[in-house]
């Protein structure tokens, strides 16, 4: 048997043995210790898997005044997911360990001498630059993005919700696809879901279109040749973009509230108060208009840039052909601008689709509507999810809606990405 086969088998037997056999001591010992650590933790690994499979078996009990702690289903779920992630990491390491042993064995069979630890350390530093650089990001992404997403996805398949399934008082159980069926079939959920969902789409489309067209009008006005004080207008127009959005939103909330100055003014003229933010339809209109106030300046800046990029010669040629200014705008300016800014439009749509701040700070989803489950008239999906999570503890449904929302946004962004430059460029990947 040659060295290659032997080192491979040894590394299969126990991580690091193959490396030790070939006198790669540092690497071998590190790998050996890693497997040892996992072996010591076997009881915890088993408990982790038991936890994610059963979500706990003992309910919390009262013994007189003393509370006997039961299993905390959600902690068990998280521990289980972490355990499974750790096992995947081990699997990856294990496979790499075998491949590495094979490679080293192969090299030594072919007469290459092994490196001393010092040589090896130098080589490791050189090669490990990549892993050192990526470690913080990897840890952050694994534990604070991927793990929460996995847990959210799993929660969608449980009954984790108030009032009967909130740990540590009660256990949570797996319920399969029940929540996904409920949200489409169960009247009270489906009605809310479709109503809120369609308003979310309308809101996102109208907001985006209005932001864009108002921004375009502003950019065109600024771009006219005879206009004076361009810098002055520009500075003022950009203000709504510069002031923190949450401040402007709260200011508008007060300005248009029932006792706010706008209504005071209306009353002082002898008219009735206008329920800007409390009438269902009017509140929606106000929301979209106020959002335009906030969003149009960005498009103004972006589109003025694009406008100056369109070369004058195109307009001169059109002029010679006798095209009027009006025709020039519709046939030259607008198509070119749309072509250049299409990705931004899509991004803005996705942003408004999840524009939590605008809705939550202006109306908080109000006015209320008892026909809707835990939602108000102006709630969009994301604010509904927030309410379901933080106020109502309906975590299972919040998770289901999050998943649906994610699929929707992801398909949108994927489409946009496929069209973008970076994807088609060979070098990127």
């Amino acid at each position, binding site marked *: 048997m040659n060295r290659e086969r032997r080192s491979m088998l040894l590394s299969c037997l126990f991580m690091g043995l193959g490396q030790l056999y070939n006198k790669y001591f540092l690497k071998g010992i590190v790998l050996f210790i890693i497997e040892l650590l996992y072996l010591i933790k076997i009881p915890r690994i088993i408990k982790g898997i038991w936890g994610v499979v059963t979500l706990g078996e003992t309910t919390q009990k009262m013994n007189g005044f003393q509370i006997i702690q039961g299993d905390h289903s959600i902690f068990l779920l998280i521990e289980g997911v972490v355990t499974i992630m750790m096992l995947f990491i081990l699997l990856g390491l294990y496979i790499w360990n075998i491949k590495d042993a094979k490679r080293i064995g192969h090299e030594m069979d072919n007469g290459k001498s092994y490196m001393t630890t010092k040589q090896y350390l130098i080589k490791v530093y050189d090669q490990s630059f990549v892993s050192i650089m990526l470690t913080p990001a990897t840890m952050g992404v694994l534990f*604070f993005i991927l793990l929460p*997403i996995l847990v959210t996805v799993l929660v969608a398949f449980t009954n984790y919700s108030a009032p009967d399934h909130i740990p540590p008082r009660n256990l949570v159980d797996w319920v399969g696809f029940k929540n996904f069926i409920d949200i489409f079939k169960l009247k009270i959920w489906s009605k809310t879901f479709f109503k809120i969902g369609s308003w979310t789409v309308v809101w996102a489309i109208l907001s985006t279109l209005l932001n864009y067209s108002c921004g375009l009008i502003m950019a065109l006005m600024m771009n006219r040749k005879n206009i004076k004080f361009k810098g002055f207008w520009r500075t003022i127009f950009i203000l709504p973009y510069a002031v923190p959005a949450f401040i*402007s939103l709260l200011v508008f909330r007060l300005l248009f509230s029932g006792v706010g100055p706008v209504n005071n003014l209306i009353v002082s003229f002898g008219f009735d108060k206008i329920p800007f933010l409390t009438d269902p339809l009017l509140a929606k209109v106000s929301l979209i208009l106020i959002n335009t106030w906030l969003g149009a300046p*960005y498009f103004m800046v972006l589109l003025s840039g694009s406008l100056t990029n369109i070369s004058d010669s195109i307009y001169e040629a059109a002029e010679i052909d006798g095209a009027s200014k009006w025709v020039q705008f519709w046939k030259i300016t607008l198509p070119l601008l749309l072509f250049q800014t299409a990705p931004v439009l899509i991004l803005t749509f996705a942003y408004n689709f999840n524009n939590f701040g605008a809705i939550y700070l202006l109306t908080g989803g109000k006015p209320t509507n008892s026909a809707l489950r835990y939602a108000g008239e102006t709630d969009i999906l994301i604010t509904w999810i927030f309410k379901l999570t933080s106020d109502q503890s309906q975590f299972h449904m919040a998770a289901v809606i999050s998943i649906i929302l994610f699929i929707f946004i992801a398909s949108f962004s994927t489409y946009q990405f496929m069209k*973008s430059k970076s994807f088609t460029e060979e070098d990127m990947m």
Partner: protein
Amino acid sequence: MSKTKIIDKILDGLTYLGLILITLSVLLPLTWIVLSSMQVGNSLYSSSFLPNSLTLDHYKTLFTKTDFPIWYMNTLKIATLNMILGVIITTLTAYTFSRYKFKGRKQAMIGMLVLQMFPSFLAMTAIYILITKMGLMDTHAGLLIVYIAGQIPYNSWLVKGYFDGIPKSLDEAARVDGAGHLTIFLKIIMPITKPIVVFVALTNFIGPWFDFIFPKLLLRSADKKTLAVGIFEWISSRANDNFTQFAAASILIAVPIAVLFMYLQKHIVAGLSAGATKG
């Protein structure tokens, strides 16, 4: 005068009218809040566009009788740390992805791309439980970890796109001259990529001033709160009593941020469009 000239004049007039109308709609709400912050008394009910007399008392109260200074310092601290740590981690990650070939690179990049589409607050329940389990509940460290981790996928992609645009021959030339990995990164790459780094720094700095989902979720005690949460609570609970106090606080938050924004406007717009086209 010819016909086209008359039309031109009319259009000019309409444009000025439009400009003035927009100016009014921008300035009126802002002026109202500035004047309100100096209005005598503190109720929203009695507020009008033009108060009779002006005072600076509310600013004084803000610093002597409320938690405002504590919140301000908290937010400033979180924003600064988020900016520094976020920029370091993001640029290092992006640089590695842009310049080094390694196993699993493509998979990692696609993974990041998918993850950046998932707004981190969609997973807020899980994050809440996780932070509780780690014993980081009601600490700024917990909030910071969530912020910094949350921005990695999107910003790394953005910055990587920028790095890709810089010719690799620059790195190679430096390597031939004997420069190490970090030296190349710090001395050669960072200076050229200043615009995008400024953009990431700025968005990371400004984020904590705006966000109030996570502070609301993860911070409990009054002396740990950030500005957005504190101020929102003034308005959502007793808007009428806290109104002028809110107005004064708004000015103190909005002015520095707006100035910073105006000053760095070009970088912001460039960064946003880069994000849009690079995907």
